[in-house]
Structure formats: structure tokens, C-alpha cells
């Protein structure tokens, strides 16, 4: 079959004698690439510069007040107790909410996928519902559910004989309360990914295990979980990246309090950058967030390179 103009014969080949830059592919990719370059790549790079300046409310009024201060924002950050607190809180959230929500997702996926279950689609939809809801709106609902006196949660606990907990007012309980809410809101997403992974486990493996006398628990341990391992890694890193960006939950439910117990890095960045207009300092905070996410991704990629092959799960 003849190929018109032969332009499919390789990247950069000319189109029927027209110069290379007339390749229609450029017209197709340019609008999107320009938008991404101008409104994402350029600002992201500019953010490096911004973090090296003392850009503040005076600089917004007049650029003459802008000075290059090099590492000063980063030095200030290291000496800022609020930064360390926000970092600690964010890590607390990621390290506890991450595994909890993945465990909930996996348990829900195993339940929904069980062979004996009917109306699988219905259960899947219902458990997924919190994922599509608006965080701000359900944050409001949970804020009332956590109310020490009128909240549903304390009433349920009271019925079990557990004393009232001031969920959002007690510095020790505020973060666990936000974690519980975040797990509820998010577990459905990873559940669906696990369900997809479970569908890809070949039925014959269970049959073989069954013939070998493996019970339900043994099948789970020796067939299902090892085969889900690649999905697991993907889910873990995506969940952690999302959780590092904790913001709306504390914004709506606690404003970072009590006693900064739920102050997250993004919440601190929002306050510094858009409330106090310390944009140079806020840019440095954004870079710490980026460094954390980058480090996590690199570690995961390395784990994956060493881990079992993905062939069975894809």
C-alpha cells in the first residue's frame, strides 16, 4: 500500500515536499503544549527564582522592593518551628492515613470481588460514592459529626460506653479525626484499582491452589496478594503523592488547629503566600513539598526495578 507523501516513514520526515515545520502534527500538539508550557512549566521554573527572593507584599506594590536573597528563605525555613510542625503533621498524615486507606481499599476490594457476592456493581458504586463528593462539602458534614456534644460519632461511642472525645478540639485527636475522614473519602478509588487487579488474577491459579488443598486464607496469602504486588506499589505511591498535598480537610475542619496540630505544608504555604503575601518564603515551602514527592517517587521506581515483573498484573 502506498503511503501518501511517505510522511509516515519516520519522525521528522517531510510531508510531500513541504518543509518539516509544516507537519500537521505540530498543529495538533501545539495548543495543548503551549498551554502546559506557559501555565505550568514556566511558573514552575519561575518558582525556583521566586524562592531565592524576598518577594513580599511590598514587592507586589512595586518591583523595586524586590531583592535576591539566595538561600535566606531556606535558612529561615530551617529555623521556623511552624515549618517543622507542618512537616511532622504532613508526614504523620501520610504515614498513617496512607497504609490505613490502602488496607481499607484492599479489604473492600476483596469483599466485593468474592465469588459468592451478588450485586457486585451495586456495592462497588455505593462504596465509591464518597470519592466523587466535594471535599469541602463532606468536610462540613464531618465537622458536625465530630462535634463533642451533638456529633453522631460521640453518640455512637457513648452507646458503647466510650466517653466523649473532643475530636477536633483536642490536639491529640484532631489529626486522627482528619485521617479517619480522609480514609472514608478516599478508599473507594484504590478499591476500584484493586478490583481491576483482582480480575486479572487467572482463575486457573485458584483452581490449582485449591487442588493442592489451599484454603481461602492460604489462597489469599500465596496467590492473590503476591500477584497484586505491582498494583500495590502503584497505588501506594499515587496515594502518598495525593496525601502529601493535604489542604482542604484541615482548612474546612480545623483551620490547622488546635495548637497547629493539623497544620500541613500546603496549608502553611497557602497562609504564607496568599494570606500574608510572603511569596518568596511560600515558594521555598512549595519546593520542600516537591522534594518530598520526588524522593518518594524515586525510591518507588527503584523498588519496582528490583521487584517482581508486572506481566501478570497488566
Amino acid at each position: 500500500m502506498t503511503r501518501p507523501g511517505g510522511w509516515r516513514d519516520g519522525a521528522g520526515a517531510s510531508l510531500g515536499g513541504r518543509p518539516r515545520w509544516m507537519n500537521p502534527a505540530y498543529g495538533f500538539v501545539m495548543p495543548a503544549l503551549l498551554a502546559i508550557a506557559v501555565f505550568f512549566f514556566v511558573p514552575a521554573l519561575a518558582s525556583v527564582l521566586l524562592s531565592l527572593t524576598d518577594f513580599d507584599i511590598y514587592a507586589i506594590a512595586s518591583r523595586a522592593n524586590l531583592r535576591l536573597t539566595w538561600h535566606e528563605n531556606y535558612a529561615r525555613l530551617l529555623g521556623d518551628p511552624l515549618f517543622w510542625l507542618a512537616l511532622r503533621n504532613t508526614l504523620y498524615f501520610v504515614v498513617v492515613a496512607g497504609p490505613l486507606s490502602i488496607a481499607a481499599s484492599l479489604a473492600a476490594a476483596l469483599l466485593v470481588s468474592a465469588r459468592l457476592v451478588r450485586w457486585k456493581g451495586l456495592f462497588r458504586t455505593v462504596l465509591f460514592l464518597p470519592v466523587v463528593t466535594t471535599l469541602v462539602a463532606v468536610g462540613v458534614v464531618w465537622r458536625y459529626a465530630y462535634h463533642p456534644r451533638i456529633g453522631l460519632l460521640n453518640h455512637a461511642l457513648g452507646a458503647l460506653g466510650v466517653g466523649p472525645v473532643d475530636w477536633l478540639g483536642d490536639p491529640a485527636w484532631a489529626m486522627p479525626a482528619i485521617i479517619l475522614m480522609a480514609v472514608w473519602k478516599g478508599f473507594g478509588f484504590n478499591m476500584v484499582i484493586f478490583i481491576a487487579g483482582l480480575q486479572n488474577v487467572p482463575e486457573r491459579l485458584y483452581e490449582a491452589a485449591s487442588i493442592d488443598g489451599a484454603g481461602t486464607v492460604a489462597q489469599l496469602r500465596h496467590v492473590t496478594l503476591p500477584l497484586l504486588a505491582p498494583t500495590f506499589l502503584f497505588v501506594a505511591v499515587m496515594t502518598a503523592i495525593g496525601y502529601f498535598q493535604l489542604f482542604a480537610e484541615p482548612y474546612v475542619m480545623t483551620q490547622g488547629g488546635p495548637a497547629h496540630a493539623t497544620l500541613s505544608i500546603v496549608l502553611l504555604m497557602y497562609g504564607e503566600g496568599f494570606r500574608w503575601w510572603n511569596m518568596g518564603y511560600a515558594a521555598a515551602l512549595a519546593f520542600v513539598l516537591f522534594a518530598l514527592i520526588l524522593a518518594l517517587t524515586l525510591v518507588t521506581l527503584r523498588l519496582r526495578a528490583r521487584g517482581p515483573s508486572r506481566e501478570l498484573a497488566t
Partner: protein
Amino acid sequence: MRRALQATLLHLVLAAVAFVTVLPLLWMVSASLMPAGEATALPPRLVPSAVTLEHYAALFRRLHLARALANSALLAGALTLVSLLLNSLAGYAFAKLPFAGRERLFRLLLAALVIPGQVSMLPLFLMLRELGLINTYWGVIVPGMASIFGIFLVRQYALSIPSSLLDAARIDGAGELRIYWSLVVPFCKPILVTLAIFTFLGSWNDFLWPLIVLTDDDLHTLPVALANLLGEHVQDVELMMAGAVLTVLPVVVVFLALQRYYIEGIMSGSLKE
């Protein structure tokens, strides 16, 4: 017999989990229909003694949430249309139209996925301020016109378009845009629907960026308006619940109507890395 018992037990557990999961949402709806003060009564009521729509009426008449509803619908709708067009054009080209440096460019885009949006936010704000786009709808639309994730999703799907089909159309003299519109778009329809739902829900639920860019009350989206309302009306539980229902209901309806595309999109997107 043992099997039947197991099945019953399994369904009971699942039903309990499902009930606990939707309980906060059911309570939200129920409390929004209660007469003022009833949601804070002791012992707590789960079902309204008498159903009233007064809080919804207050939201629209007194608190102008209709404006926020319209803003949210307009912004989410516009963003979905624009980004669908740009992402599908680019995604198709990355899959099927060769050009110099294509693979390298695509790898660069994928690598950039690890950069969190917050990194670009501060300079983006200053840039849009220079352009006079802060406090306008454009300030929200412009940064979301194209997305790496959207391009990726379309590309993965468009890879399976048979090249012979495209070549045949070219021999028949069809232009590239014509081919895109009458061959590629229909072929990619399932993934485009998925992407449309992702984009619509994502921008409807987005909070941080609209909060930063839209400072004028008249331009607030529903999540921003709701967060502001909480400041003044935190005591009016039933009113706040009605506001939460109003914010959540449109996305839940969109999801329930198109859930097949949405859930399948997540499943295929996650596994076809």
C-alpha cells in the same frame, strides 16, 4: 448449606460496610430537611420530624448560592469542553502523527507528573495578575486548558486506532482535521467520555485554586462559597447541610449517570501504564 451460610454472612458484612460508608451522606440529606435546631437536638435525630425545604430556599433567596451554582457549572463546563478538545488533539498526535522529538517530549511530560501543582501556583498567580486575569473566570479556565494526564489518557487509547484506517482516509483525500473529527473522535469516544467526567468532577470539586483566584463574592464557586458560609453560619447546622447537599448533588448525579465510563476509566488507566 455451608456455602449459603457463607454467602449470607458475606452479604451482611458488605451491607454493613456500605451502610456505614453512605451514613454521613444520608445524614447530610436528612439534616438538611429538618426544621431549624433539630439537627442539634439531644438525643440526636436521624430522620426529620417534619420535612422542610426552608434551608434550601434561604440558600437561594437570602444567601445567593444560585450565583455560586451557576459559576461552578459554567467553569466546570467550559473547562471540560476546552480541555477535551486540546487534550484529544495532542493525545491523538502523540499516538499516531509522527514528528521530530515526539517520544522524548512525551517522556518529558510524563516525568513532569511528579511536580505537584502547588509548585507553579505562586508564580502563576503573579503572572495572571499581570495579565489582569485574577478575579475573572479566565483565571480558573486558563491554567486548566490542557493537562498532561488528559493527553496521556487519550494517547494510550488512540494507539489502538488502526493506521490503515487513517491512511485509507488520506488516500481518499481527507484533510488531517477532517480525519480527526470524523474518524478519531468517534473511535476514541469511550475514553473522551471518561476524560470529560474526570475533568468535570475535578474542576467542580477543586478548592485551592478557585479560592486563590476568585476573591470577589460574585465569582465564587460552590465549594468556596460553602467554606465562606461556614464562617458566618457554623451554628445553623441544617442550613450548612443544605449547602453541602447543593454542592455535592450535581457531581453525584453526573457520577451515577455515567459511572460505567468513570470506573472503567480508572481501571484501565491504572493498569495500562
